[in-house]
């Protein structure tokens, strides 16, 4: 086991296999893999296989016909949105979906991460400890009223036009939708890691957000079958 040179012997990735990189490696490594791997595998696998077999035989007659394992019910009545972009149009879409889902009686959670934070930073706040964190907040002017379009922003001309059109066609703006979402109990969950990295504190964020959480919380929802969107 200690004979192989661990730094050189590595499992070939799919990419390696496709480009043939494995074949380009020094011959002795390929040889080592061919000669050493099989005995190692057989030495470790064989005994366990022998051990497992009788256990199964003993256990089998005792157990009653197993009930089919209950499938976890998909949580149809919940929605999780991972809000990452912070763009004007995507913030809009996120809030339209969140309010509609809440209006349909669904439990809605919006997980805020990366650029998804600045719409919910208090307008006028200047968060950050280091100059880099401060610059982030300068480049991403905080507040729901100061968002940029991901396309056709044109130094603010795009958002200005969008808001003109929204008024004319009586489309609710992000500010109004955010207020409705929060009034309807949409859970806004800040990502702790982004807060740390961007130098954001709870005081920099608008009131009414949930306790910060992490990726495991998000994945817990996903594992429960909650429909999840990444916007």
């Amino acid at each position, binding site marked *: 086991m200690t004979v192989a040179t661990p730094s050189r012997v590595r499992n070939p990735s799919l990419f390696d296999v496709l480009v043939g990189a494995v074949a380009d490696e020094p011959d002795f490594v390929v040889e080592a893999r061919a000669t050493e791997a099989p005995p190692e595998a057989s030495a470790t696998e064989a005994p366990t296989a022998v051990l497992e077999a009788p256990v199964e035989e003993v256990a089998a007659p005792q157990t009653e016909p197993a009930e089919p394992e209950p499938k976890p019910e998909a949580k149809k009545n919940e929605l999780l949105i991972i809000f990452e972009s912070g763009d004007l149009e995507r913030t809009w879409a996120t809030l339209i979906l969140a*309010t509609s889902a*809440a209006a*349909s009686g*669904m439990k809605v959670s919006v997980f805020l991460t990366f650029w998804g934070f600045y719409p919910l930073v208090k307008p006028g706040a200047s968060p950050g400890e280091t100059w880099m964190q401060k610059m982030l907040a300068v480049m991403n002017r905080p507040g729901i009223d100061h968002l940029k379009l991901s396309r056709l922003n044109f130094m603010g001309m795009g958002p200005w036009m969008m808001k003109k059109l929204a008024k004319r066609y009586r489309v*609710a703006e992000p500010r109004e*939708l955010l207020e409705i979402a929060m009034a309807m109990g949409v859970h806004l969950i800040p990502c702790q890691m982004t807060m740390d990295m961007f130098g954001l504190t709870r005081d920099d964020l608008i009131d009414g957000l949930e306790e910060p959480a992490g990726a495991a919380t998000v994945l817990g929802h996903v594992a429960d079958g909650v429909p999840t969107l990444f916007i």
Partner: protein
Amino acid sequence: MTLEIANRLDARGLACPMPIVKTAQAIAGMASGQLLEVLATDPGSVKDFAAWSKTTGHEIVEQGEDAGVFRFVLRRK
């Protein structure tokens, strides 16, 4: 037979998602079995109200259109 409307909501002129959002807010304050009448001009509301009714269980008991105004009568679950 005329239905006894307990509450009325004018959502004319409003775009998605406001007719549904305002309807949900209005119906939340009503008693079970009471009727809510909603007027909307958003053509998308026809499909949206059908879907919303299915999701929430609040039944559409009457539905019609007159000169671009859609009318829904909903029974609180």
